């Protein structure tokens, strides 16, 4: 079996936890975020004939002023940068976190997840900015906690990245 470690980082209240809550196996409560600072969940994704087991490290919400505990990201195969589409500054924080991670651990595969897609009319993040990021090679997902499809495809994206890495 292939296993991989994935991290989820993002600002406070961007809906990281609720984003994955319905799609992962979990034995730990959200209290771990405030105590240890991370909560580990599990998600099995089938790619082709292979099952990829993802250990998802859901890191506590950060803001621009606190230093990210990059130790938690050590050894991960990739990470999800989660931002709230209705609050533009969460995207700033996310990009800041991405910069910190890259500084600490070098380049790692990541995707940008813009959450709260269901509240699209109230979005502060404009389309142009997203397009610009995509042009820079950033993989962007629009998602909502209510939209299972995009959550599954985020995990599948990583799973296929990993199995490609193993195939090569």
């Amino acid at each position, binding site marked *: *079996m*292939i*296993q*991989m*470690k994935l991290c989820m980082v993002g600002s406070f209240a961007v809906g990281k936890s609720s984003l994955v809550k319905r799609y992962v*196996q*979990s*034995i*730990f409560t959200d209290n*771990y975020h405030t105590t*240890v*600072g*991370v*909560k*580990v*969940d*599990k998600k099995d994704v089938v790619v082709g004939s292979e099952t*990829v*087991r993802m*250990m998802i*490290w859901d890191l506590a919400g950060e803001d621009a002023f606190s230093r990210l*505990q990059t*130790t*938690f990201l*050590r*050894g*991960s*195969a990739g990470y999800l940068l989660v931002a709230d589409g209705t609050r533009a500054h969460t995207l700033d924080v996310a990009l800041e976190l991405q910069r910190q991670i890259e500084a600490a651990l070098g380049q790692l595969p990541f995707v940008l997840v813009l959450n709260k897609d269901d509240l699209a009319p109230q979005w502060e993040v404009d389309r142009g900015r997203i397009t610009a990021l995509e042009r820079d090679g950033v993989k962007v997902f629009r998602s909502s906690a209510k939209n299972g499809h995009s959550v599954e495809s985020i995990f599948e994206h990583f799973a296929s990245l*990993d199995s490609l*890495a*193993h195939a090569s």
Partner: protein
Amino acid sequence: MKPADSLNPVEAVAKPEEPSAGEWHRLRSLLFADEQASLKALAAKVGDRASLASSVAGVLSEAAAIRSRHDDSITRVLAPIVETSLQQSVRKNPQPLVDALYPIMGPAIRRSISEALADMMQRFNGAVEQSLSPRALKWRFDAWRTGQSYATVVLLKTLVYRVEQVFLIHRKTGLLLGHVQADQIVAQDPDMVSGMLTAIRDFVSDSFHVADEDGVDAIRIGNLSVQVRVGPKAVLAAVVRGSAPERLRVQLSETLEGIHRSHATALNQFAGDTAPFATVERSLRPCLSAQTRAKQPRMPWRAYMVLGLIALVVGWAAIARYETATGWHQILDELKQEPGLIVLESGQGGARTIQGLRDPLARNPLEIIGAERVRQYGIVWDWKPYLSMEAPFLLRRARQALNPPKEITLRLNGDVLQASGVAPPSWVREARSRAPFILGIRAFDDGSVVLTGQDSLERARQMLTSAALYFEPGSDVLSDARRAKLDTLLPSLIALRDGTAALQVGYSIEIVGRADTPGTTAFNLHLSQSRADTVRQYLIARGVPAEHLHARGIGAIELASATSPANAEPAEHRDSLDTERRVNFEVILDQKERQMDATR
């Protein structure tokens, strides 16, 4: 040898003219003679199998020793070879292997058996103790209260320590490489626990700025602890209940080191694929050790008590059964010994049954055994009638058939029925006619029977002795009346004859003649004799045997009148006649004489 022509540019420049092969050869000989010789020797050594073998043989064991210190590849290589060799050896001839193993097999088996027995005894004692003692009841209550199984509660209460789970975690990613857990442990998802454990260790290292190697090596929560050993590539974490001994820490370290050795490549190149670690569980499992409170080895008295109790019950049952069996056999013996009973079949499947033969004259089996025992053993029997030829039954049947008087004793001599005692002749006659028809009796011997008949004899004697025959004065003539009177005595005479014959005694009748007082004594004597003779002659004439009759005249006797018998003649005769002119009878029985045949 390849000529080193163009390899030497210096020489080529110095000497443009090509030297001959011979010159080259000579030059090489001059320069490298020693090396060439040793190379040649070396080549010969390597090329020749025998010398190569002896060279390798010289270092083979050292090489093996050095290699085994580095890894277990020699073992891995040799294992299948040894296995195949053993298989072939056994297939070819198992005897050498049997001989080799024999000295160790016996002691090993004996030891194993004795250990197993001792262990069983201890376990049994433990089980008895744990199910009977007050402490056990309390633990059962705890188990019921906490919803845990009783076994778990017992384990927790008696445990010094137990390793419940062991995690092998990839150090960098926190991904789980291997996991084992003890039986009856309910564990959370080990993948997530592994991740979280790593996160906590990271958290602690980060928070207190310590290097990962120096970080958390134990987490303790009450009675539970997580022992952590950190290797270069992997982390071993053991969840321990109770207080872990020092040797467990050593064991964990050694296990982790072993895994680093055996899975060095897989650990170095780990990128998420856990397949190479499929076998790591085998290394982890020995870490799942446990230790219960060492109990003082003591007499397992509870076990002995329970076993003793069982032995007592079994013994009691056996004795009862034995007694029942012997009782049953005794009943059969008693019945078999009883005359007139033949036990043909007896069985004790369910009810006890007896089938047999019984002479109607035999004792009732119910009397022999007693109704109490028949009920106790639940005996059902079926007796068919038969006639026993045994002596007691022949006698009993003879007694029934002959109905002897109580003075008669019957005996059996072979098939001859012997009677003794006193019996009337009629019975003897009857018995003689009946006895031959009694089954099993051929002849009847009544030689020892004394015949009765006294009554009739006595009556006859009395009749005769009381009778008196009167005569006219001076006459010895029997008148018609006198003859008639004599005839009345004839039955008594016959009775006398028969009676004495039955008693086997002799008899004689004295006919005593008398005369009255007038007249001379001589005359009277003569007259009285004449009168007696007359009567005797008459009786002889009537058929009475003469030899039994004796006539005697006694003359006149004055006192005779005073002894007039009661049974005398009628009064009219007496009135007119003198009672002294008469003839009387005296009966004499001779007991000594005896006739053999009573009925003749």
